């Protein structure tokens, strides 16, 4: 989190004067569930990239590959896991317990506190 400014040093009325500065707000701190990428299963369909509300799906455009998550901004909403067609083949909903037990899932949501590298 950037250092907080005083009332004299910010635009009035809550205005944001710089376009696209949402990247400066690390919404990753809100996360309760963390997405985990199962690279082996991924079919690189970009559904997660399309649906992510925080533009937090990292892709390699040259090789047309999904490569991971921008965890600075990912709020852990789980939409990526929900829309992932690989996951859909396994279960209808990305239930967390099932997800942890099933290595075939491309994107699984893991409780932030329990996450270990």
């Amino acid at each position: 989190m950037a250092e907080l400014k005083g009332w004299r040093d910010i635009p009035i009325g809550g205005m944001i004067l710089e376009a696209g500065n949402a990247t400066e707000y690390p919404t990753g701190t809100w996360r309760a569930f963390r997405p985990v990428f199962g690279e082996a299963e991924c079919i690189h369909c970009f559904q997660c990239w399309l649906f992510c509300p925080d533009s937090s799906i990292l892709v390699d455009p040259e090789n047309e590959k999904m490569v991971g998550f921008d965890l600075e901004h990912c709020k852990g909403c789980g939409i990526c896991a929900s829309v992932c067609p690989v996951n859909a083949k396994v279960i209808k909903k990305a239930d967390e317990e099932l997800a942890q037990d099933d290595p075939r899932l491309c994107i699984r949501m893991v409780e932030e506190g329990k996450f270990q590298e």
Partner: protein
Amino acid sequence: MSKFEALAGNEAVATAMRQINPDVVAAYPITPQTSTVQTFANYVADGLVDTEFVTVESEHSAMSACVGASAAGARVMTATSANGLALMWEIVYIAASTRCPIVMGLVNRALSGPINIHCDHSDVMGMRDSGWIILFSENGQEAYDNLIQAVRIAEHPDVLLPVAVCQDGFITSHGMERVEIYEDADVRAFVGEYRPQWSLLDLEHPKTYGPLDFYDYYYEHKRQQVEAMQHAHRVIQEVAEAFNRTFDRDYGLFEPYRLEDAEVAVVVANSTAGTAKVVVDRLREEGLKVGLLKPRVFRPFPAEELAEALAHLKAVAVMDRSISFGAMGNAGPLFLELAAALALRGVRMPMADYVYGLGGRDILPREIESVYRDMLRVAETGQVERMVTYLSVR
């Protein structure tokens, strides 16, 4: 050359709007404001103004359109009354906190219920904490003059707050009076051109209005509003001085009437102040030292100047055209705030509140005279028998 016209208060306000020629007006008709926007709509239809007139489906939408247009960088005006203002409520606060310099003609009417279309001040008193600047007008002339000044006050870079210009429903809004109308060119020169600093239509500098504002910055934005209100206190006086010079008027934070050597005074806003002046003159003929203070600026509340202007009196009555239900003594808001202002500055004198005229109940000279006679007795004894009187209630 200015000219004198016979105009109802709403027509005077509509005339000011024509002369100001705002970029956008968004309004919804409600009695007794209707003839303001109806008259102005005629000006739009007749091509006398360049205004984009947005006809909306409700006051909530009217104020929303005003905020949007103001954010886009337009000079924006609207008008409403009572329940219309109540329906705007959510956006009334947003207009102030988003720092939109919108000017509103507010024709004071009793809030329902029971439903009533006539004058009292319950509508404006409800918006007193909303962050708007609030000006009172005794008659059509003052409503006209205040509206012109409101544009410059609202748009001042140190202020950037919306302004509501009040006049009494029907009594002023529909009462035809002699109003001095200045030259169009003089009014336009006085209000000048609005140069918004942060226009949404400035595509070279994209920006966001109204984003989410949490515990990390919301408080700081409220502090900025306080600062703007503090600046408004000065700017209102500067604009009044310029206006007085240009149009030969005498506006200030309030109008003292035969107050200087008075021993007893009444504080009353809007049209009833006019009636009270007649009563003051009559009692003065009897040799009674009575005076009047007519507030013009209610927000920001000029506590220090009011205390100073009233300090020499032996007794003061406040006349309130609304009730702050459940507040101390079930008194009116003007009394409560003035009493606090005097007490905190060590100005001690017997004070009483007279609630009057709710729902358009007539207030007669003899009733105002009874207030003065009460206060003359209080001045002698130093004792207030009743803190709050509901004048002429059955």
